[in-house]
């Protein structure tokens, strides 16, 4: 199962380390990372894939949101299907 994680907020040391550490512990593989500055905000996009024994996406969404709250960032995860539905016919 594939998903995209978006991290939005002020740039700071340790964002990738914190998110990738959490993902490694939860058995989620990072396939791609890109970063950009959007309207003055640091925006990171990660393409990830869930291993078979990873937790369901709603639980991971909760963990990422907690991590985001801790770091003052908006961190969210969305199943690949919503992007494909909206942007591909």
């Amino acid at each position: 199962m594939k998903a995209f994680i978006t991290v939005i907020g002020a740039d700071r040391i340790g964002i990738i380390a914190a998110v990738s550490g959490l993902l490694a512990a939860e058995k989620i593989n990072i396939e791609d990372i890109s970063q950009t500055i959007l309207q003055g905000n640091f925006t990171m996009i990660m393409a990830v894939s869930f291993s078979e024994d990873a937790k369901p996406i709603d639980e991971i969404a909760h963990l990422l949101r907690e991590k985001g709250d801790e770091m003052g960032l908006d961190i969210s995860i969305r199943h690949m299907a919503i992007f494909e539905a909206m942007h591909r016919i």
Partner: protein
Amino acid sequence: MINKYEIIETVQMINERHLDIRTITMGVSLLDCIGTTSKATARKVYDKVVRSAKDLVTTGDKIGEMYGVPIVNKRVSVTPISLIGASHLNYLDLACALDKAAAEIGVNFIGGYTALVQKGATAYETALIESIPEALSITKRVCSSVNVASTRAGINMNVICRLGEIIRRTAIATASESSIGCAKFVVFANAVEDNPFMAGAFHGVGEGDRIINVGVSGPGVVKTALESIPDGNLDDVCEIIKRTAFKVTRVGQLVAQTAAKMLDAQFGIVDLSLAPTPAAGDSVARILEEIGLEQVGGAGTTACLALLNDAVKKGGIMASSHVGGLSGAFIPVSEDIGMIEAADSGALSLEKLEAMTAVCSVGLDMIAIPGDTPAEIISAIIADEISIGVVNNKTTAVRLIPVIGKDVGEYVEFGGLLGHAPIMKVSKISPKKFISRGGRIAAPLHSNRN
């Protein structure tokens, strides 16, 4: 592969522009719940609703987390209760059973306290209609509707005459809560059997046992898209609305299919709606103003709304395999900050609202009127609005709230998604003789359309 701009666009539509799924509504057939006594029927109704929809809220929340899109409401609609209670006429037991079941499964509204009487009302349907004021005052979550007309059957004026009084009684019975009972009651022409939106949702007898219908939203997304073409012509305006509606509806289709699968129910329809909320940035009126009106309600409003409504449907229709419900732009006054402001400043009148309903979805919706408005005037407003639906072969509806103790110039606060509104002026010219005549208005001619 999805590129980063597409990902960011989706995230911004959800985070900043209020793209959401307005409702996942499960339609539940109660035809197998008719028992020998009213108590037995009520027990079966409660059991079936709870059994069918016990996982609706948790599943809706899970899907919301999975796709990162808010799913604002999870609701249930049921078979018209006038049919389920027909053999014993004790409808209040059924209203209480529905209310209790809704509370048990955690949904804020359950729709279907309904009678379909477009051609004639039986004794049992009349009994249900007469029980509406009490049913809406002793329950919190039950929503009620009556279909009084159709393009094929014409208009049942006997019932419309009665409903003016029923709405007044409902207002009085819930006077201590700003007459909120009336916000849970809709009068329809050409009611649809698969509408996911409250208060008018019911589960038609032609539907399956358990159906998932989804209503999308996103006025803020459309407005923001329009801001990118401040000087575009109306062809450009239509094009950008269509593209946006397509994307919004695709999310609805995805959520509906996922919900149907997870809940082991049949996928019914996606309702392509622009449904506003009182939150800033979630207003249909603001879209019309973005197209180029100084304020909604002025000249040009009906044309802009016609354009918007049609473009939303054209954009959405290809995005879903089954489109239904009330699909179109909604213009509930108390639930849309731009409409509230226009009503407040006098830019928007009841008469202009009526004209607007000829070209968009639903009808005279969530309009607060003086508490002393006579029953026959309420009936006549209903008759006017219903005529628009019948002649134009579309669904129209009326949800008026005569707020007891309040008059023009005052405000009413309903709270939550129901919003707040100024009390609007109503013509006092008496339609008493017309309404008291009773009878039916015949179905309109469908040739020589002028």
